[in-house]
């Protein structure tokens, strides 16, 4: 199963709930298109919930980075919640823990947006 994305509003923060796998192919392109679309529509506070993402490969990591860059270039912020141990490990191995703001719970993450 590739990734399925749904979005909801919590105040002025757009929360994207991701379910499945973010890997080379359909999963990565679905993710890329969704983030680009949200950024282009002026959503500047985006919170990506990865708690139901079972697998991310290096292409998926690349899409996370690309999404981060896209949102930042539009003057917005993209933050992460719900990282599984495996996804945390990947972000640590790739040093992306130093790039992304990561939160354990949604309410803290929502409050952190400026």
């Amino acid at each position: 199963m590739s990734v399925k994305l749904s979005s909801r509003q919590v105040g002025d923060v757009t929360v994207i709930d991701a379910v499945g796998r973010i890997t080379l192919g359909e999963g990565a392109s679905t993710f890329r298109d969704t983030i680009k679309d949200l950024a282009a529509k002026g959503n500047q506070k985006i919170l990506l919930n990865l708690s139901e993402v079972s697998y991310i490969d290096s292409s998926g990591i690349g899409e996370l980075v690309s999404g981060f860059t896209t949102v930042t270039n539009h003057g917005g912020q993209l933050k992460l919640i719900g990282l599984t141990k495996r996804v945390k490990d990947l972000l640590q191995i790739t040093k992306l823990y130093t790039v992304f703001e990561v939160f354990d719970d949604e309410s803290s993450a929502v409050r952190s947006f400026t």
Partner: protein
Amino acid sequence: MPEQGSGEASGVETVLDSTLDSVDFAEAETLKVAEELGFDEEDLHRIGMAVRECMVNAVVHGNRYNVKKKVQFRVLKNAGGMTVVIRDEGEGFDLKTLPNPLAEENLLRQSGRGLLLIQAFMDELHIGRLEPHGTEVKMTKYLAKAS
């Protein structure tokens, strides 16, 4: 073919098309062998991801999805663990010229992390050029080091 005297037995040996289906196939076949050998769930994840990354490199960056170019895929098992060998027919690459994905200036690059993950998840990694063209990647995971 098993290598004489090495104590290795061939688990899987096949030639694959340069497609993403081959990536899935190689990952699944590797995991079957790894499960038989008794690797735990976390190591199965690591081995599967390493093979997936290596196959993507072979199919996408090596053979560039060229239908005329194939990927040789081989899994060897032994008492101490397993070795996966993946060969493509691409132009090859020089490891020294690859950007370091951990360098500050490269952290926001979209690609270039595959080899880093393979190195992190496997115990040994050897990359060699094939003549007249192609790349061979040989990676090993030891049961004794299973976490």
